[in-house]
């Protein structure tokens, strides 16, 4: 072992968090052996004219193909640094020589290493940012200008002339723990034993874009024109004949390479899992390795609009920190809240409101609160259930309109095993089903409906339903709906607990979702319950106080969440902190307004509740007023409820608009969100060759 290699391995184990972290595992991989696996030159090149000899027909090998394009022969490791087997076929019960059926081709690839996990190797020291890899990928995969399976961005630092730019070429890392595969509700993703390739089928995909949320590397590409996601396919057709992927073969900086994972390519001396700008490998255990030996400035900035830069820590690793790109001034930018995420704003708010609308009175009745028991027994319960059902359906409909392929919505439940989105969908669907069932049962006992049937169709319903245990059925359906709804809400929250999106990955999401369910639910159900009670000349104050209490808890919960969120993200230097920085600047005034509304509401609600408890809201002694509650109290509660609606919409719109993913640095134009928005705003994007797709779906 040469001294150089020793140094490489030191870097590998010492400065590499991931590698060090894995040391605790059981894996056979050690840093030393990792570096000792050095890929040697590919075997003698085939004779001219015999390039295809002994190779399968998946790809035509060029006449006189060069050594750089062939995958080298290698003695690979048994396990990778995370302790995962590299030969993946041993993890499956598949036969070794099965076909991948690429484009329905039954031939079996002739690559001897085809069942081993492969990955890219990026020598960051060498990338010149020439776009050859990107264009080779675009050419091979026929991708339109506005999307790319591989993109090159850069970070830069230093001061002229001591200036350094580091270009980063990134595609899919075909991770050990493919969060895209797990997140996808349609099961469009497959991790193949062959090459460990994580491949996605656009024909299965319904374009929800959830995989683009969870992937930390921006690998899956949602095409707003086609409405589906597609991504890097590892060029498995080339791999089958023993050629490296098209991007690697095209690289003119000798930066991009490819091979069995943990193999260090010839003439490389380092094999580490992170470079500045690359998200923590702990999220997905990506199958990419790096060499980056040249010293970089302590601070590396991004040229794109993301308010994130990277600073070298004491351990030599670069960590994201906030880059105050938009200064400190606070703005409204209310128009920017109106975005393509609108359907999701409506979906989550309506679904949460629907849950609360049903759950608050139902649970109160179950708990034996008399006034709610009375309400549940009333004809208006049907209206409430149907209202909740409609709100859920509207929410779900909104979520479907957010899909690139709305008519494939039914595929949303295909990945219950892994995807929180599937489970969320199922929970809400079952909630709707429970509500539907409950509505049917309530219909049978509903006096208005019975009268309608008798007068209109001369049907006596009670005769048909008398034998059925309707009360128990109603209750059972309600309990079922409540459980399903709670599960739906739980997984709705789980959908946003994403490591790649630290702004969401916080308990504030829980408090917001639950809080909104309570406050909006109390409001919607309150309107119905109080009006029913008023008509029935029943005392209103107990109901008002309870609903007000629920509302207040909901709002307070949200406020507590926001305080925690603000505290944690202010202390955070990662993309979550950066998103919060945008929240406090670009949307600073809007954010403040929402918080102000929330605070005022809490005090107003508290005051009203206290006045109620003190009996000050009663219209004492005035028997002529059956309502029994001061009219001004209703007015006050109505104003508070309205303000709450506004603050909930603003809050949710901020939630979706602000999130900054742990994504790869972009370039000045390409993969720069700021430029994309500008190009759309001014009309440059009307030219398709601009590479910025209009945001329609």
């Amino acid at each position: 072992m040469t001294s150089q290699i020793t140094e490489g391995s030191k870097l590998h184990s010492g400065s590499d968090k991931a590698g060090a972290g894995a040391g605790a595992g059981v894996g056979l991989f050690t840093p030393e052996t990792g570096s000792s696996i050095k890929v040697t030159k590919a075997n003698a090149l085939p004779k001219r004219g015999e390039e295809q000899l002994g190779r399968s027909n998946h790809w035509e090998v060029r006449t006189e193909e060069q050594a750089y394009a062939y995958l080298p022969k290698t003695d690979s490791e048994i396990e990778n640094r995370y302790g995962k087997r590299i030969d993946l076929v041993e993890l499956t019960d598949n036969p070794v020589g099965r076909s991948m059926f690429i484009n329905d081709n039954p031939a079996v690839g002739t690559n001897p290493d085809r069942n081993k996990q492969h990955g890219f190797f990026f020598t960051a020291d060498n990338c010149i940012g020439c776009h050859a890899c990107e264009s080779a990928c675009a050419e091979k995969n026929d991708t339109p200008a506005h999307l790319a399976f591989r993109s090159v961005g850069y970070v830069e630092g230093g001061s002229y002339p001591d200036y350094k730019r580091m270009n980063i070429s990134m595609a899919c890392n075909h991770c050990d723990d493919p969060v895209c595969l797990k997140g996808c509700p349609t099961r469009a993703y497959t991790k193949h034993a062959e090459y460990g390739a994580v491949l996605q089928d656009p024909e299965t995909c319904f374009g929800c874009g959830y995989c683009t949320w969870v992937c930390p590397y921006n690998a899956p590409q949602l095409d707003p024109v086609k409405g589906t996601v597609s991504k890097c396919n590892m060029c498995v057709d080339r791999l089958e004949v023993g050629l490296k992927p098209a991007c690697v073969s095209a690289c003119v900086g000798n930066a991009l390479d490819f091979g069995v994972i943990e193999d260090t390519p010839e003439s490389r001396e380092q094999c580490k899992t992170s470079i500045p700008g690359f998200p923590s490998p702990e999220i997905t255990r990506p199958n990419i390795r790096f060499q980056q030996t040249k010293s970089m400035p302590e601070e590396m900035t991004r040229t794109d609009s993301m308010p994130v830069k990277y600073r070298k820590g004491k351990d030599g690793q670069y960590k994201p920190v906030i880059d105050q790109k938009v200064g400190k001034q606070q703005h409204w930018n209310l128009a920017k809240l109106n975005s393509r995420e609108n359907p999701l704003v409506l979906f989550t708010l309506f679904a949460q409101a629907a849950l609360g609308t049903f759950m608050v009175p139902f649970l109160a009745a179950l708990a034996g609160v008399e006034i709610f028991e009375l309400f549940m027994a009333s004809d208006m319960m049907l209206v409430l259930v149907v209202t909740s059902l409609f709100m859920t359906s509207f929410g779900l409909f909104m979520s479907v309109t957010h899909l690139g392929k709305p008519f494939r919505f039914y595929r949303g439940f295909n990945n219950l095993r892994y995807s929180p989105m599937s489970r969320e969908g199922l929970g809400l669907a079952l909630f709707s089903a429970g509500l539907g069932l409950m509505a049917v049962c309530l219909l049978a006992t509903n006096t208005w409906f019975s009268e309608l049937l008798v007068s209109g169709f001369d049907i006596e319903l009670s005769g048909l339903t008398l034998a059925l245990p309707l009360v128990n059925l109603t209750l059972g359906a309600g309990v079922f709906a409540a459980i399903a709804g709670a599960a739906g809400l739980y997984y709705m929250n789980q959908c946003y607990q994403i490591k790649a999106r630290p702004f969401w990955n916080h308990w504030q999401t829980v408090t917001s979702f639950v809080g909104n369910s309570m406050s909006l639910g109390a409001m919607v159900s309150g309107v119905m319950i109080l009006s029913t009670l008023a008509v029935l000349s029943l005392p209103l104050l107990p109901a008002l106080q309870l609903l007000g209490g629920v509302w207040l808890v909901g709002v307070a919960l949200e406020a507590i969440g926001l305080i925690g969120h603000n505290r944690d993200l202010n202390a955070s230097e990662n993309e979550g902190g950066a998103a919060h920085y945008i929240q406090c600047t670009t949307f600073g005034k809007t954010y403040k307004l929402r918080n102000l509304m929330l605070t005022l509401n809490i005090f107003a609600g508290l005051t009203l509740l206290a006045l109620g408890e003190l009996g000050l809201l009663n219209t004492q002694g005035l028997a002529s007023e059956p309502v029994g509650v001061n009219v001004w109290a209703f007015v006050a509660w109505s104003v508070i409820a309205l303000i709450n609606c506004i603050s909930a919409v603003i809050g949710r719109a901020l939630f979706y608009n602000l999130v900054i993913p742990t994504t790869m640095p972009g370039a000045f134009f390409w993969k720069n969100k700021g430029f994309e928005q500008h190009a759309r705003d001014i009309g440059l994007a009307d030219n398709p060759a601009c590479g910025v797709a209009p945001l329609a779906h």
Partner: protein
Amino acid sequence: MLFGRKKRKPIVIPSKKVAQWKYTTCNYCSTGCSIEIGLNEQNKIVTTRGHAGADVNRGKLCIKGILEHELFESPGRGTEPLIRDKHFEDFEPTSWDHALDTTATKIKEIQAKYGRDSFAIVSSGQLLTEEFYTLGKLARGVIGTNNYDGNTTLCMASAVSGYKRSFGADGPPGCYDDFEHTHCLMAFGSNLPEQHPIIYWRLKEALEKRHFPLIVVDPRVTMLAQFADIHLPITPGTDCVLINAMLHVIINEGLQDQAYIDAHTQGFEAVKALVQDYDPKQAQHICGIDEDTIRNVARIYAKAPAAMSIWTMGINQSTHGSDGVANINNLNMITGNIGKPGGTSLSITGQCNAMGTREWSSCSGLPGYRYLENEADRNEIADFWGIDPEFFPKKRGLAETDIFPAIETGEIKGLWIVATNPMTSMPNTARIRKALEKLDFLVIQDVYRDVETNQYSHVYLPASVWAEKEGTHTNTERRVNLICNVLPPFKNSKPDFWIFNQLAKRFDNGQMIHFPETPEGAFEEMKHLSKGKLSHGGPRHLDISGMTYQKIEAARGIQWPFREQDEGLKGTARLYSDGLFPTASGKANLLPISFYNNNEQPCDEYPFWLNSGRVVEHFHTRTRTGKIGNCNKFSPTAYMEMNPDAAKELGVEHQSYVRLTSRRGDAVVMVQLTHRVPRNMVFIPFHYHDCVNRLTLGLLDPYSRQPAFKQCSTRIEPIDQDEAARINVERRAF
């Protein structure tokens, strides 16, 4: 089973279904990469790939080459000839006959009225060599104007001039293989990763096999500068001072190769005397490179067993362009680095066929590096073409950059522009616009109807592009390579070769001179003219007589000289290996290069250097790459690199717009803040119409007449952002 999936989803990967591959050479830059175009069963072009067996690119292509097959059907292509009376009227489509008849009649009219030279022709480095030869024949032998030049005056003229002054003839003496042998490489104003990515790759391969010092002279921290062992961030326009100071160190420390100097050069004493004035102590204050570094670099270079220099526009596009080239040649001759493996003066050429036009277009004289000034050359060509030698002028006429001022003064009344776009590419756009407006008659022959210069034409001739034609290119290392005809011309466009032939028929001399029907026929004429000795008896280096299309394709390009009697398929890798130069004495000229500062310098009023250059995804004025989305998306609109410290002082923000002003005009660009450029410099890619060249001065080199695009001064003004955005969109038709 991974992640519980028993059933795999189907794998669908686009398949191009190539039925046959056709050989061609890239039509963008001068690297000369071999490309195979893939056609499917229906003979439709579906893909391109680098030819793995070609020595130049060894299977690699840059972004432009990878996507080149997408250009055939891109928007804006000319579909039929167009005609109009006045430039402010609308075009009418017309027939080829009418368009060519009108053109011929107008040329004759103008020449009859104002003299033969009042009609000028400006061509390009983009055509095929056979087309250049034919155009030269048409211009020199048929139309007979002496005001005939190519846009190579904007890119390579200084290299040509410098080579001629030093070695007695044009022609880069080195090759890419020199990277494999050199022990020190010095790059002057050459940003290979951006401009010639495949040459960069050849260099990188050599460096990875065996590291040698890489020294980069560039005022910007380009990727090459960043990767260099030593980066010299020079003050713009002062390369001659740096080289003189290096020569001062080399000569005064006795590091020169005196044996080589004595045997193969003349003029050493004059150079030695001159460089005494360039002590690094004084030179450092002019060129901005400190004394120690100058000495260090000079010693490394002189002591290397073999050292080479490459350069591109950083040298050529300057008021000292020709001098800079001659001085680089001085450096290499004094260190004995000419014509040996790894020791050379290699200009990295710009356009795909800049070399072809230099060799055969007759722009600067007569075909095959012949001179109008030389009677024997005039007689030889006149005899071969079958015309009276007196038809030729006895001295070269105006260069491209002098043709436009001659339109201003009224000397030139008619102009034919072939495959170039001066409205975007020439310095001082306002002046060009005014000149074009003044013309009585302007013909534009171009692949694209929307080429900006077409705004002022009276006749537009739609030309075919690249593999719609057949012929050859010569690359940076003198390699002649073949473009096969892969597909028929687009709509009613025609190959330039056909257009020249048809126009020739409409003139008296055109009836007398033979114009071969095929490019290969023209190639045979060129081969014939490349044989034999120079007029002073030396060997003719530009000898292609051993080549045929078949041999060129089999070899994937052959480097000249490749003579009739040469066997095999290998041409000559290096010139002057025998130490014999095509000068009268056979010795190369060491030329004392004194520096004078005539650049427009930053001042109080215009405090920034204005620098311009290329980006990898675009070529020239974007008529091609601007329409290929996967190229264009990386820089779809104009931008300017600016130092963040300077920006802070002026309150300029990243990704906002500014208005730049100079003594010529103004431009609106988006700002990219980066420490890649110094505090007193801004850099703007030149590809965009109505952008940087509205500002540039383009002072001319006294020898090459090449404009100094890269050295002038500018000022930054604020602009209303909405207004700027509107202007930006309006100026980007593509």
